[in-house]
């Protein structure tokens, strides 16, 4: 899944290590998420979004996630 984590880190001048420590994961996890090799859990996505003061949708790209909407 595409994310804006690397972009936001650069904008706020934060290293992967610092972000990892702040959200309670290893640096390798942040690397994997940035490289789109691993998809963060809902809780981790929430922590990352909260850390950057934004929403999950703003950081994670859900455009490729297919979902059927309720018929009105």
């Amino acid at each position, binding site marked *: 899944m595409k994310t804006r984590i690397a972009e936001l880190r650069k904008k706020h001048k934060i290293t992967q290590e610092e972000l990892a420590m702040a959200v309670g*994961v*290893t640096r*390798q996890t942040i690397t994997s998420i940035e490289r789109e090799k*691993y998809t*963060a859990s809902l809780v*981790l996505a929430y922590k990352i979004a909260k850390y950057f003061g934004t929403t999950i949708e703003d950081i994670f790209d859900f455009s490729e996630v297919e979902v059927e909407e309720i018929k009105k």
Partner: protein
Amino acid sequence: MMEFKQQLKRRIYLGGIYCVVVALLVILSRIFDAENMAFAFSLGFAIGIEFVAFYFIAKYRAALRDEKKLKLLYIEENDEREKHISYQIGRTGIVIILISLSAAMLITVHINQIVFFTLLAATLYTAVIIGILKIFYNKTI
């Protein structure tokens, strides 16, 4: 984090008990001159594990003295990607083990019956454990 600290203290305590028990076994083996191969192997194995226990006791004690090390250890043990990797290893590993055991069984049935029945028992045991765990996790998760 307090809960994690308590958990580490429990691990240190249990590791300590293990080390004392193994040390006593070493002393007793010297006193009673237990020299048979099976006992010597078991004791050697236990001593090997004891060295691992020493390493972890030292690591946990260091973490309990330093908040930064404690947090790093907590992250190391609770990292979600690591958990995901462990889950994948378990899932893939069990399939590989079952296939390997089955293949070995099919080969040994032509060579040695004792080995064949041992492998058959191991395969059935593995399959039963998988079944039990599947039922358990289907009910609990």
